[in-house]
């Protein structure tokens, strides 16, 4: 028992080690949230291009849309076909090769790598959402004189978003956990913090158990938040 208390002391209190966890949580959350935002922006744009292309009447294919659709398909294939860690390594050691090794630069490259990566997965989620909305909704919007883009924005996307919220929550959770691989480029996130403490104290059980619990708690918070948003969006489903 004394040994365990001593271990706890060493891992958390000694040398202000707990700060590694605090700063780590901050970095992990920052990278996750910024990546998610970037991923959503990329995902929605790619999804609209892909879905608009697929929903065209076969007699009136728009060549410009066809071109962008091919670009999107290449993006999806490459990003989903290569490991996230490899993408991260390329982003930092190749694209950011001339950048100084500051925290800000490391975070920038991590956000770019994860944002571009999750954008590919989010794109397919959003596309499935758009395709699930009845074609009559677009027709109703267009028949009122709204443009294609305006109907997408005010009518289709809000409905699609409601349908795909559980899948987006899943992506959010995956992203949070996957950011732990930023350790390979030396960014001091939560996982890196635990590894540093391990190096300083020669202890593995307590620091790694601690970050496992922290990740778990963060995920539970995300689940809770997504649940609240889902319930809010469900007001229109009420029956008589």
């Amino acid at each position, binding site marked *: 028992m004394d040994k365990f208390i001593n271990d706890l002391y060493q891992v958390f209190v000694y040398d202000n080690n707990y700060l590694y966890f605090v700063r780590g949580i901050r970095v992990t959350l920052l990278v996750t949230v910024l990546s998610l935002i970037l991923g959503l922006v990329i995902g929605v744009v790619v999804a609209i291009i892909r879905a608009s292309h697929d929903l065209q009447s076969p*007699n009136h294919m728009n060549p410009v849309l066809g071109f962008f659709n091919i670009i999107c398909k290449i993006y999806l294939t490459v990003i989903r076909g290569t490991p996230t860690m490899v993408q991260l390594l390329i982003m930092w050691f190749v694209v950011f090769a001339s950048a100084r090794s500051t925290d800000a630069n490391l975070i920038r490259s991590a956000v770019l790598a994860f944002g571009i990566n999750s954008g590919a997965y989010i794109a397919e989620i959003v596309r499935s959402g758009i395709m699930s909305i*009845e074609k009559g909704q677009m027709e*109703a919007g267009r028949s*009122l*004189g*709204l443009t294609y883009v305006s109907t997408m924005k*005010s009518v289709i996307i809000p409905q699609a978003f409601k349908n795909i919220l559980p899948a987006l929550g899943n992506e959010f959770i995956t992203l949070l956990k996957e950011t732990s691989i930023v350790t390979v480029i030396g960014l001091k996130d939560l996982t890196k913090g635990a590894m540093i403490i391990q190096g300083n104290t020669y202890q593995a059980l307590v620091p790694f158990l601690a970050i496992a619990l922290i990740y778990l708690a963060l995920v539970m918070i995300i689940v809770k938040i997504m649940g609240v948003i889902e319930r809010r969006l469900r007001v*229109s489903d009420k*029956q008589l």
Partner: protein
Amino acid sequence: MTNSYNDANVLIDVRDLKKQFGDHVVLNGINTQIRKGEVVVIIGPSGSGKSTFLRSLNLLEIPTSGEILFEGVNITDPNTDINVHRQKMGMVFQQFNLFPNMTVKKNITLAPVKLKKMTQDEADKRAMELLTRVGLPEKADAYPQMLSGGQKQRVAIARALAMGPDVMLFDEPTSALDPEMVGEVLTIMKELALSGMTMVVVTHEMGFAKEVGSRMIFIDEGVIMEENSPKEFFENPKNQRLKDFLSKVL
């Protein structure tokens, strides 16, 4: 684009309209004119092309060839901004197509506000007037899910009217309704017709056609087989296919 008919009363002028899906010819040269204040009722067997024809009028279906002039403008010209003209052509769908994530009032005000025809306040006021007209003012804050089919269709009519259209297109507006709800929708449509609205209606409601129709069109195999006043059309049909059709539905 000049209008060779030079008839100021012509609202929609359809010239040799053709529509093909791949090898399948749906419309094979339709020629007709819709004049202001007319209630044109289109009937025909299923698969005859009547819905495709109606949906071509506001370019929800893009014709393969031919021209449609709306208020003198050739809307089939790719350089025409169809969105501007669609604002003047209200459409009511068989499946209502209300926006399920918006309240009834929001359904009605969305387009006028987005298209900067009205402020939100003006649109809200107009929405209440229209809801009163279709007998549903108390449903303003309800969501479509909470309404019956007949109520949904009445809201859909109000939504189309909110843009102040010059013509209303009805695509089998009562076909998806339970029988006891057909009447309430037809009543609204009759009132609309009596108010002088130009209407093009695809329907199987022969009673409605006889009562308020000013002209009947029978479409089969992608062409207009017969076109006449309701009285002549029903009492003295000339086309054999129309005779067969009427004998089945009347």
